[in-house]
């Protein structure tokens, strides 16, 4: 028998598409209509069959596993908690509570994606808007260092490129669209004007645009490999639009200059607001990485890279960011939740992680889980667990589970671990 769930929320990426029609047969998802390839993969590949936790290579009961986790955390002097970006805020809240309780360092995947965006925000602020404002109003959209055509596949149709809105009744026709990147991408094929800049020159190009908009005469003929005439055209488009939006991604945050690149973009956008209205939209990757920022911030005052070692939150990007903590071999135990650092961290950090007692909470046995002391196969938030997620524009949506779960949720297990601890 097939059952159908309408308006399911796809918790794959920061778009949080909430119009998915999911078909279920024998507790497995067999169809995910309207979902993009990424989302379809998430829904259909997931096998919600309960699995036993694994401790030191052996399958054990949940009770035994929880006890083993408590022992690791009780014994740790300097534990690290990392991840959070693909689980619900309910689980994130519990994770921060655990970190507070045990005096852990806690960091989220923000530190390896949009952490620099957070730093730029702390330096300058951020002029932003919800995605509906882009859909309803934006007559100029710029994609800078991001590739939604592959990473946020429905961003174009739901938010930024084709939707028709109150002020853009003709949708795509009412928008001028620019792309800026170091190489042509699937996204650059969709825009009206593409500017290919030299790798590592985002900052220069952004500064030049700011200078031009402030009326300075630029003498160079090329900036970052781009003819000045093209930048003049872009600057003109920016100041003459009614409501502009620049969607920005890891092309800015994870290349040379990092937070300085983002700062320059944020400064440009703030400047533009003296002439028109302009917003920046950070293209957050994982489904609830924005939520991780939010929860960390409301509970600790800081978005990521926090240490509770002193009994209260201390902020230290570069100091308490997971990659740095591991590379310096400062953690003596780790709890990884809803992320896969072994697959994504620099070799040195990932190699050290293998040497310390590590607990992994994840619906899938990812690379990190395979070498971890303890693997806890929890429910997948958004599929067999309900929970709240924050979209890339910080609008929160409650995702109802679409299939029945025999697995515990992250927050249940974290609660059990806290109760089993001695300290």
């Amino acid at each position, binding site marked *: 028998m097939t059952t159908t769930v*309408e*308006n399911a*929320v796809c918790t794959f990426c920061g778009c949080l598409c*909430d*119009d998915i029609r999911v078909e279920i047969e024998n507790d497995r998802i067999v169809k995910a209509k309207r979902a993009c390839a990424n989302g379809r993969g998430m829904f259909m590949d997931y096998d919600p069959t309960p699995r036993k936790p694994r401790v030191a290579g052996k399958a054990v009961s949940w009770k035994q596993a929880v006890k083993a986790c408590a022992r690791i955390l009780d014994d740790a002097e300097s534990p690290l908690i990392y991840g959070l970006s693909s689980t619900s*805020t309910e689980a994130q*809240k519990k994770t921060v*509570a655990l970190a*507070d*309780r045990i005096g852990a360092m806690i960091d989220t995947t923000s530190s390896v994606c949009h952490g620099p965006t*957070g730093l730029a*925000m*702390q*330096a*300058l*602020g*951020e*002029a*932003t*808007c*919800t*995605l*509906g404002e882009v*859909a*309803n*109003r934006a007559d100029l959209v710029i994609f800078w260092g991001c590739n939604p055509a592959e990473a946020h596949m429905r961003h174009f149709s739901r*938010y930024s490129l084709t939707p028709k809105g*109150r*002020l853009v009744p003709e949708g795509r026709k009412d928008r001028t669209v620019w792309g800026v990147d170091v190489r042509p991408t699937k996204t650059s094929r969709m825009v009206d004007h593409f500017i290919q800049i030299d790798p590592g020159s985002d900052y220069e190009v952004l500064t030049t645009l700011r200078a031009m908009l402030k009326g300075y005469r630029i003498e160079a003929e090329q900036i970052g490999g781009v003819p000045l005439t093209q930048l003049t055209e872009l600057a003109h488009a920016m100041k003459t639009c*009614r*409501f502009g939006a620049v969607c920005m991604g890891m092309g800015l945050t994870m290349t040379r200059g990092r937070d300085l690149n983002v700062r320059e973009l944020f400064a440009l956008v*703030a400047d533009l*607001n*003296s*002439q028109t*209205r302009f*917003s920046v939209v950070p293209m957050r990757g994982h489904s609830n990485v924005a939520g991780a*920022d*939010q929860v960390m*911030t*409301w*509970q*600790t*005052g*800081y*978005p990521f890279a926090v240490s*509770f070692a*002193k*009994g*209260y*939150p*201390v*902020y230290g990007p570069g100091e308490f960011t997971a990659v740095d903590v591991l590379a310096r071999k400062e953690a003596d135990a780790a709890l990884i939740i809803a992320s896969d650092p072994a697959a994504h961290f620099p070799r040195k950090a990932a190699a050290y992680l293998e040497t310390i007692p590590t607990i992994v909470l994840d619906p899938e046995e990812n690379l990190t889980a395979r070498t971890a002391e303890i693997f806890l196969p929890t429910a997948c938030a958004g599929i067999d667990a309900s929970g*709240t997620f*924050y979209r890339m524009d*910080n*609008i*929160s*949506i*409650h995702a109802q589970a679409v299939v029945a779960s025999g697995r515990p949720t992250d927050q249940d297990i974290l609660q059990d671990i806290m109760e089993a601890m001695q300290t």
Partner: protein
Amino acid sequence: MIGIINGRVYDPCNGIDGKVRDIWVKDGRIVSPAEVDRSAADIIDADGMVVMPGGVDIHSHIAGGKVNAGRKMRPDDSRGHERPSRELSQSPRVYTRSGTGRSVASTFKTAYDYVEMGYTTVMEGASPPLMARHTHEEFEDIPILDKGGYILMGNNHFIMDCIRRNEKEKARDYVAWLLGATKGFGIKIVNPGGVENFKYKQNVTDLDDKVIGFDVTPRRILETLSWINDELGLPHVPHIHGLNLGLNGNADITAETLIAMTGREAHFTHLQFMSYGGEMGKPVRSAAEVTARVVNANPNITVDVGQVVFGDTTTMTADGPVQYRLHALTGNKWFNDDVEAETGGGVTPCVYRKSNPFNAVQWLVGLELFLLIEDPWRVYLTTDHPNGGPFTCYPQVIRMLMDRDFRMQAFEGISKLARKNALLPELDREYSLYEIAIITRAGTAKRIGLDWKGHLGVGADADITVYADMEDREAMFARPRYVFKDGVLVARDGQIVCERPGQTVYVSPDYDTAIEKEVRRHIEDNYTIAFEHYAVSEKELSNGRQVACKP
């Protein structure tokens, strides 16, 4: 069971002005002595102490998207303002949560700071409907305190469309739906039409200016929402932040707006920011007399002051253009968030300086309003936290109001330019403890519409604060001896001793369900989330309390 005996009780709702009374508590409520077995009761001897209901804040920004953006943007506000986690009991192990921040404190710290100051209920001043879920998520992490939120409606597309088409009944049904969907407590209006116009880099400056694309005026938005508030019988009244906030000469438009509401019930928030004289480009003057006169003459109007306190703080409002202007003026960092089809808003850090003539006048305006508005039941203590300063400065403001010498000492320290021709030295009024109890709990609870709070009569929630009676009123109000919430001792000598969840109050007025079809279409056409995902369900509130409407 608890007895708080021999204390001097200030319970203005019941006309008790400093009489020695015993207060009895059972099952979280105030009860008559007959219901209590005294031998089994915990007795607090409050001999020589002052007993009041728990503090009730009518307007403060403590939770939601803007507040959290402020926290994130200001690590500098967190550093040096840390609160460590503390063990409350060994078995079972109970800890308070750690936190940071002063003007934009983290959620747990916000709760503890309020409770340790004797407050037990706080209303969040402005939540965009689309971000109500976020506000509620933060409420869940603000323990002990009871909370509720006002929902921003002054720039809402559906409502403005209805007004243009003269369909006020439809707007009414929508507002009822929206309050239920957001689990909000009341109607908030911020710069009606001006926030929408800011999305075109414009604003409104007059009640009869046009809202771009809607052909409606701020006046009609105010009138319609006030009519709706009445029709739905909401516990609170329309909560209004008017036009031209922070601008020289705005007292005239504020007076005009107050007069436009003659005969209607309305609450004007942070009146201090709306009561300036002088012209643009010229030195600002206090025009507290202008707005206070209108308030005094209109018994249906209440206000909270939004007192400025000198020092560093964070400003935040749904009034997007105000925050942009402040950023452009100061060069301070600026956060802005335009919210689809509903509202906008921004955040900017700010330092109020004694030596700055504008800031000094702002400070004067607040105090003058407190002293010029005659009926304490209609003027409430707020700093519009954190806009005028952090709520932790309330005790300082209380001392200013109760102690003319202290006030004048502070006056001598402010900008000479601001002192010139100032009215403040002529105002001899000193607030009594009874009046302080009105502007900080009795009056606010009544005006919010929480009849079971703000007093110590039989049946009221046993939210009780006991103060040592000290000459230094600032020290007295900063650190109460005992704070009870629902009859449980939660703070002693200014330190949390028990953590428990607080309630979230909300309304869910009845409406003609035919509206849902239209709302669905409106959301499909104007929003990027599905109708099904818009509403916050009851299940998402772990401790919600629906408050009845009286249409």
